[in-house]
C-alpha cells in the first residue's frame, strides 16, 4: 500500500524524482523464485539421494525464503527485504497447514474407497474373521447415530436454557461463575468426561456398560459448545426487538420464546449441528463406557454397542491389511458425516443469518 502512495506522488510531480522510488523486483519475482527453488529442492533431493519427499519440500521452502531475502536485500534494501521475508514465511506457514489436510483427506478417500460399498454399510462384524476381508460397520453407524442422538437430546435443551439464562437474565455472581466454567468446561478432555461417567454411572450407581452411558459423556462434552454458540447468537438479536415486545406488555418468557429465539434460530441450529459434528468423532469416552460390540445392538440402554470412531480404533488395533482397509472405510464414512453436518450447518447459518441492522 505504501508503494502505491509513492507511485502516485511520483505521477503527480512534474520533474522525475528518482530518490522517491527505490528499485523494485518485478511482480512475477516471487512466483519465479518459488519455481526455481522448487526445482533446486527436487534437484538436491535427487542428487543427495534423500528418500523422504517431505525433506525435498522443506529444502525448497528454505531455499525460497533465503534467495528471496538475499535478492530483495540487494535490490530493494533491508526493510523491504524483511517485509518480503515475513511475507514468504507467512505463505510457508499457510502451505504447511494445507499439506497435512490435503494428505489426510486424500489418504482417507483413496484407501477408504477400497472396501466402502453397500455391503460394508449394511453388515456388522458378527462372525467375521478379523484377518479376512468382509464385514462392515452397520453396527457402528447405528451406535453412533443413537449415542449422538441421545447426547443431543440431553445437551441441546440444557445448553440452550443456560445460554438464555446468561444472555437474558444473567447478572451477578452466578452468571459470572457459569460463564467462566462453561469456558473451562470446553477444555475438559474427552477422556476425563468418560472417566467421570464411569465413576458416577458404572462404579457408584452400578449400571452396566451401554450406549446411554457413552451418550451422557458426549452430552457433557457437547453442553459447553452449545452454550457458547447459542450465547453468541442471542447477543446478536437487536435489543429493540425485546423492548418492543416488552412494551406491548408481553411477559418476558413469551418475549424470549416468540421473539428472541425465532430471530436467532438459524444460528442456534448451526451451533447445535457443529457441536453434533464435534462429538460424533469422539472415541475416548466410547472406549471407556460403551465397550464395543461386534454385532448389531439396537438398544442403546442395554449392553455393549459400537460407534464409528471406536470401530476405526478397534480395526486399527487388529493390525492386518483387511482390518486397516475397514478402518479407513469407516474413517471415510465418519469424515463424510462430519463434513456434511458442517457444510449443512454453515449453509443454514448463511441462509438464516439474523439481520442485525448494521
Amino acid at each position: 500500500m505504501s508503494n502505491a502512495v509513492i507511485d502516485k506522488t511520483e505521477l503527480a510531480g512534474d520533474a522525475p524524482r528518482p530518490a522517491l522510488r527505490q528499485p523494485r523486483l518485478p511482480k512475477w519475482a516471487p512466483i519465479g523464485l518459488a519455481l526455481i527453488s522448487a526445482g533446486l529442492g527436487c534437484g538436491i533431493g535427487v542428487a543427495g539421494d534423500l528418500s523422504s519427499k517431505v525433506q525435498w519440500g522443506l529444502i525448497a521452502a528454505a531455499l525460497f525464503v533465503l534467495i528471496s531475502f538475499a535478492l530483495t536485500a540487494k535490490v530493494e534494501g533491508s526493510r523491504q527485504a524483511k517485509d518480503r521475508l515475513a511475507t514468504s514465511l507467512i505463505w510457508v506457514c499457510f502451505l504447511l497447514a494445507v499439506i497435512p489436510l490435503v494428505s489426510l483427506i486424500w489418504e482417507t478417500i483413496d484407501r477408504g474407497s477400497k472396501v466402502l460399498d453397500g455391503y460394508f454399510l449394511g453388515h456388522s462384524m458378527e462372525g467375521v474373521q478379523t484377518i479376512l476381508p468382509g464385514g462392515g460397520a452397520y453396527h457402528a453407524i447405528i451406535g453412533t447415530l443413537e449415542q449422538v442422538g441421545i447426547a443431543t437430546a440431553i445437551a441441546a435443551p440444557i445448553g440452550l436454557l443456560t445460554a438464555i439464562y446468561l444472555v437474558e437474565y444473567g447478572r451477578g455472581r452466578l452468571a459470572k461463575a457459569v460463564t467462566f466454567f462453561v469456558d473451562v468446561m470446553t477444555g475438559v478432555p474427552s477422556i476425563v468426561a468418560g472417566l467421570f461417567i464411569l465413576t458416577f454411572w458404572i462404579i457408584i450407581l452400578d449400571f452396566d456398560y451401554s450406549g446411554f452411558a457413552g451418550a451422557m459423556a458426549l452430552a457433557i462434552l457437547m453442553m459447553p459448545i452449545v452454550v457458547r454458540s447459542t450465547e453468541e447468537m442471542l447477543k446478536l438479536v437487536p435489543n429493540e426487538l425485546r423492548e418492543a415486545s416488552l412494551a406491548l406488555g408481553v411477559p418476558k418468557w413469551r418475549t424470549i420464546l416468540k421473539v428472541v429465539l425465532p430471530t436467532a434460530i438459524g444460528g442456534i441450529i448451526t451451533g447445535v449441528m457443529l457441536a453434533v459434528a464435534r462429538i460424533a468423532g469422539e472415541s475416548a469416552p466410547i472406549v471407556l463406557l460403551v465397550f464395543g460390540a461386534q454385532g448389531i445392538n439396537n438398544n442403546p440402554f442395554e449392553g455393549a454397542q459400537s460407534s464409528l470412531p471406536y470401530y476405526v480404533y478397534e480395526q486399527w488395533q487388529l493390525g492386518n491389511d483387511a482390518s486397516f482397509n475397514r478402518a479407513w472405510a469407516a474413517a471415510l464414512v465418519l469424515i463424510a458425516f462430519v463434513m456434511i453436518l458442517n457444510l449443512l450447518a454453515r449453509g443454514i447459518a448463511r441462509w438464516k443469518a439474523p439481520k442485525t441492522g448494521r
Partner: protein
Amino acid sequence: MKTDIEPTSSTAPPQDRARGTGRLGDKIFLGLSRGSGILLLAIMAAIAVFLTIRAISAISEDHGNFLTTFEWNTTSRPMVFGIAVLAYGTIVSSIIAMLIAVPIAVGIALFISHYAPRRLATPVAYVIDLLAAVPSIVYGLWGALFLVPHLTGLYQWLDDYLGWTKLFEYNDGAPRSLFTIGILLAIMIIPIVTSVSREVFRQVPQMHEEAALALGATRWEVVRMSVLPFGRSGIISASMLGLGRALGETMAVATVLSPSYDIVPSLLDPGGGTFAQNIAAHFKEADGPARDALIASGLVLFVITLLVNGAARLIIARRKEYSGAAA
C-alpha cells in the same frame, strides 16, 4: 401474541390474571434456565468430587510413590504405579506441539487477516475450520499409517546432524515416538490457535494500522508494531487453549505412540506415554482397583487442563476489559 396483548385492556380482573400467569411463566422459565446453569456448575463440581474419591482410594493402595514411580503395574497385588513417565510424556509432547503449532498458527492467522488476497482469505479460514472438524481418531489413523512411515527420512537426517545432542538420537525402527506425537498434536491444534488469534487480529484498531502505513511502514512493520503488540495476550491465550487440547488428546496418541514405562532420553525413539493414552490403552484389562488407579491419573490430567484453560480464559477476559472490544 395477540392473546397476550388483549388482556391488558381496561378491564381489571383479566389484567390481573394475565399478569399472574405472566409472572408464573416468568418464574418457571427463569427457574428452568437458571437451573440448567447451576446444573452445569454441578457437573463440573461432580467431576472433581467423584474423580477425587476414587483417586484417593487408589493412591492409598499404591505401594510406589504416585508422583515419582515410573512403573504402571496395576495387575499385581500390591499395586505399584506412578505418573512420572506419563507426566513427562504429556508435557514433552505438548511442548513440542506448541513449539511447532504456535508460530505456524499465528502465521496463518496473519495470512488470513492481513496478507491473503480477499478472495483467498475466506476459503482459507473455512478450510482451517474444517481441519478442526476432522475427528481425532482419523488423525490417529492417518498418523499411524501415513505420517509415521514418512518421517523416517526426517529422523535419519535429524540424527545425522543433531544426534550428538542425545535428544535427537534415532535408532532404526518405526518412529512412533514422542516427537511424532508432538508433530501430530501440532497439526491438530493449529486450527484452534489460528481461529482465536485471527479473531484478535481482526479487532486491531484500523487507525493504528493506517497510522503506521501513513508513516511509510512496510506491511511487516505494520504487523510488528501495531498488530502483534495489540494481539499479544490474545496469542498467549490462544496458545493455552491449544495446549489444553494437546494435553488431553487421547486417541491420536494411543494409535501412534508405542508406549513403554521408562523415560527415553531421545525424543525420536519410541517409548514413554501420556495420561490419556495410558488410560485408553489399559482400560480394557483393568479390574476395580486398577481402574481406580487410571482414574487417579485422569484426575491429574483434569486438574492440569483446568488450570491451563482457566488461565487462558482469565487472560482473554482481562484483555476484553481494557480493550473495550466486544465478544
